């Protein structure tokens, strides 16, 4: 009985935290990310193989009473197993750990969640143990608790709880995976995030390209546009409420802002010139875009509210794309003013433009890491390869080696780069992820062909 009281106290704690937030809001755990202003991050490429041997047991989450919910009609017991599966997949797919999931582990009882049967897990050579529970609340929402234990030391490393609407049950699992990942790696979380991309179907010469979104693990997939007009290059707004993208809706390439809540969209810059390559500023107040006038492409910025555009580049070459530094003070972009595509940096107002890529070949599609310490780009030397460099254009490292890899986008924590890969001849496009060591590369499953991934920040 005493055990139960302790558990109830634990459950109540997260509820109390959430009572102050809006209904349906997910808690934002206090950030325990290391201060990443400088220092620690310049040498941010750690050797992940050290983690590979770390056995993490993730048994099915327990429940106080098996109740059917909108999240899982079979009940919270079945949901508890699904939660553990999602956490296991998160931790496994990114190559950092070797988790063992609920399907090959005994299921702890509800009271065990706060006091693990250590001998059980020691016998299985588990070094770490993730336990949790899911409980259906009277108001229809779910409470999910997540606990990380060090089996060898027999102590608790971290715990967190969240109250979510049933439709967001996967977010609770991603939050738990983020908690474990952050605590064990020292890195910032990233699983609880979404990806916008272009879904591609049909033969190479008549390919249909639709705007689509999904969770970071590919779940909750949804098509946004119907494919009648070619859609390209989406980017989530920092608050996830809007997506800016290119559409051929009125014949010429134009940039639209699509509002996810209302399903409506509007033109960003109303004129007769083609506009493309849209980007958000980190504060979500500006849209950076490229516009061709008489065949000459320059980079402009305009307030998200609309109004007059401001031209930032004026070279006779193609100036295109762009990505803000995390503090919004600088923009890295692509220009062929030297005769071939190369990477340049300028101040956010367009001043002080200078080339940073001097390592041979062409360099395109630069994307500033959310941590500020690296710039990912497409390096074209025969084949297209994903590479990273420091913002001074030095320390170039190739992360991939394939026929055509293009358009890197960063995980919110700056540890993983996502990009799209085209197959030779068929042109089939698929999404891939690679970590900063270049060793852990994997394909992200999508229902159809996929290109132009854009990874949003950790969900608010």
């Amino acid at each position, binding site marked *: 009985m005493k055990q139960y009281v302790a558990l109830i106290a634990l459950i109540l704690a997260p509820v109390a935290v959430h009572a102050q937030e809006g209904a349906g809001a997910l808690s934002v755990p206090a950030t325990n990310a290391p201060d990443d202003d400088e220092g620690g991050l310049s040498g941010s490429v750690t050797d992940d193989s050290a983690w590979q041997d770390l056995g993490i047991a993730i048994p099915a989450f327990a429940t106080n009473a098996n109740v059917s919910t909108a999240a899982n009609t079979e009940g919270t017991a079945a949901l508890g197993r699904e939660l553990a599966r999602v956490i296991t997949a998160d931790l496994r797919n990114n190559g950092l750990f070797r988790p063992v999931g609920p399907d090959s582990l005994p299921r702890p009882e509800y009271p065990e969640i706060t006091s693990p049967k250590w001998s059980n897990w020691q016998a299985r050579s588990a070094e770490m143990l993730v336990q949790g529970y899911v409980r259906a609340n009277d108001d229809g929402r779910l409470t999910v608790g997540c606990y990380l234990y060090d089996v060898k030391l027999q102590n608790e490393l971290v715990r967190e709880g969240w109250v979510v609407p049933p439709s967001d049950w996967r977010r609770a699992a991603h939050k738990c995976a983020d908690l474990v990942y952050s605590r064990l790696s020292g890195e910032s979380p990233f699983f609880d995030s979404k990806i916008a991309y272009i879904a591609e179907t049909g*033969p*190479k*010469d008549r*390919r249909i*390209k639709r705007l689509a979104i999904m969770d970071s693990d590919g779940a909750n997939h949804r098509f946004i546009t119907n494919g009648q007009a*070619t859609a*390209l*290059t989406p980017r989530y707004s920092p608050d996830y409420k809007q997506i800016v993208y290119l559409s051929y809706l009125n*014949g*010429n*390439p134009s940039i639209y802002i699509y509002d996810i809540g209302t399903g409506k969209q509007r033109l960003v810059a109303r004129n007769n010139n*083609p506009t*493309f*390559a849209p980007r958000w500023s980190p504060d979500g107040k500006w849209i950076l875009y*490229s516009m*061709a006038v*008489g*065949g*000459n*492409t320059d980079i402009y910025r305009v307030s998200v509210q609309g109004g007059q555009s401001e031209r930032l580049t004026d070279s006779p070459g*193609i100036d*295109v*794309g762009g990505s803000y530094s995390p503090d919004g003070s600088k923009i890295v972009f*692509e220009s*062929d003013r030297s005769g*071939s*595509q190369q990477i340049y940096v300028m101040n956010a107002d367009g001043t002080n433009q200078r080339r940073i890529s001097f390592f041979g070949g062409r360099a*395109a*599609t630069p994307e500033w890491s959310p941590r500020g310490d690296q710039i990912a780009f*497409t390096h*074209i030397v025969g084949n*297209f390869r994903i590479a990273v460099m420091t913002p001074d254009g030095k320390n170039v490292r190739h992360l991939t080696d394939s*026929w*055509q890899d*293009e*358009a890197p986008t960063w995980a919110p924590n700056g540890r993983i780069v996502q990009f799209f890969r*085209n197959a*030779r*001849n068929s*042109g089939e496009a698929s999404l891939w992820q690679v970590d900063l060591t270049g060793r852990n590369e994997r394909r992200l499953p999508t229902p159809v062909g996929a*290109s*132009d991934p854009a990874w949003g920040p950790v969900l608010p």
Partner: protein
Amino acid sequence: MKRLVSLAALAAAITVAGCSKKAEPEQLPPPPATVETAAPRPTPTPTGPVPGSNADFMAQMQGRSVIFFDTDKFDIDADDQAALRAQAQWLQRYPAKRATIEGHCDERGTREYNIALGERRANAAKNYLVSLGVDASRINTVSYGKERPVALGSNEAAWAQNRRAATITID
């Protein structure tokens, strides 16, 4: 008779020049349905293309409705000039007709850059037509970047066919 001979010689010269072009596609791209390259008819019949229609334009151009570019280039060379002269003549014959020039690229460029490059190519073609006296307001440009290839392989021959500016007149 002499005129005919010199005309034939000129035609031969053009053909030779065409063959010696830098990256001339070995064969013409399979035309999209809307850009049918009809076989030239010895005598126009009522069932042939309506004069001044896009079908007529395509039939008259005999492949010269499309010009081709080198990798990452947008300059108009001698062959392109000959093709654009033929286009300009047709457009001047039908001054009420408008045209769209589509700029395209091969797949070996990044997506956004290729949209800019295709726009450059379409504009280069447009500017040349304007220099020949075609009113600029009659010509629209649109870039499809690498999104609409006509040759589907991943080899130099296919890429050469895809680096193009295609003129389509608006019926």
